[in-house]
């Protein structure tokens, strides 16, 4: 085994945690990501493969499903899989084995940084960041939008737990934007 050290998107060796008011903002490096895009004619097979990977049916647009391995919709016939990094470092290989050539699978773990917001009153933070209707945005909902000029996935895992996936290279800018919005809201 190699012994290369991992750095988080913010450049540290430990994930950063910030608390302000009722909200906790944490850097979450512990997830592997892989994108799955159905090939022509492989749409049905891809949906079935995703079900085998996550348990429940492949999520519809705007949704996330699954437990340990989850999938969320990212575009027509495309999903992103996520799973704990420690147990699923090569999630993309597992997915590729499952889709059996009916879908294109790409490792995306390094492409995204993830920040989780936890606490009561997340709507006040989110409404300062992006044009999401926080009344209809319920657990299991996923949307992609722009936060401070950065294209991000916003995932509602629970009413008091929202994940934001943004481009890894801009992690510091995104983190600053989230923290500023927290301070502005509370």
């Amino acid at each position, binding site marked *: 085994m190699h012994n290369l050290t991992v750095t988080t998107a913010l450049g540290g060796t430990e994930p950063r945690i910030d608390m302000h008011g009722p909200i906790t903002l944490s850097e979450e490096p512990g997830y592997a990501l892989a994108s799955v895009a159905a090939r022509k004619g492989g749409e049905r097979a891809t949906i079935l493969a995703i079900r085998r990977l996550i348990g429940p049916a492949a999520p519809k*647009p705007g949704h996330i499903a699954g437990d340990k391995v989850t999938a969320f919709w990212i575009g*027509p016939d495309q999903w992103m899989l996520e799973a704990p990094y420690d147990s699923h470092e090569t999630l993309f290989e597992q997915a590729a084995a499952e889709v059996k050539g009916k879908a294109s699978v790409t490792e995306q773990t390094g492409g995204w940084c993830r920040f989780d917001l936890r606490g009561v009153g997340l709507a006040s933070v989110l409404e300062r960041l992006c044009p999401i209707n926080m009344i209809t945005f319920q657990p299991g909902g996923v949307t992609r939008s722009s936060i401070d000029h950065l294209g991000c996935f916003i995932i509602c895992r629970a009413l008091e737990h929202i994940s934001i996936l943004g481009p890894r290279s801009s992690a510091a800018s995104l983190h600053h934007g989230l923290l500023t919005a927290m301070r502005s809201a509370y």
Partner: protein
Amino acid sequence: MIINHPILGPRDSAEFTYMGDAALLDRPDWQAKDALAQFIDYGYLRDNPAGPHQELWYHEQGDRSFLVVTRDTTTHEISSVKLANDVARSRGRST
């Protein structure tokens, strides 16, 4: 402006990138006898109507779909939104 995405519902136009007249779907055949003339027309001439206009919007900050949006250029009112992929297929675009 709000664009009613056929899959995702109403979305802020700020999430999109405008990509021009939907006539850009009709790329000429390179082997046609008058291919050069057709490509010049395709590349440079536009109807540019004052009224309903079919145009391409790319959901760059969203699901990366290209949409064909019919929008009145005098009022910005949007009357129809379709996936460009479907429109391209229905127009018989293949290879």
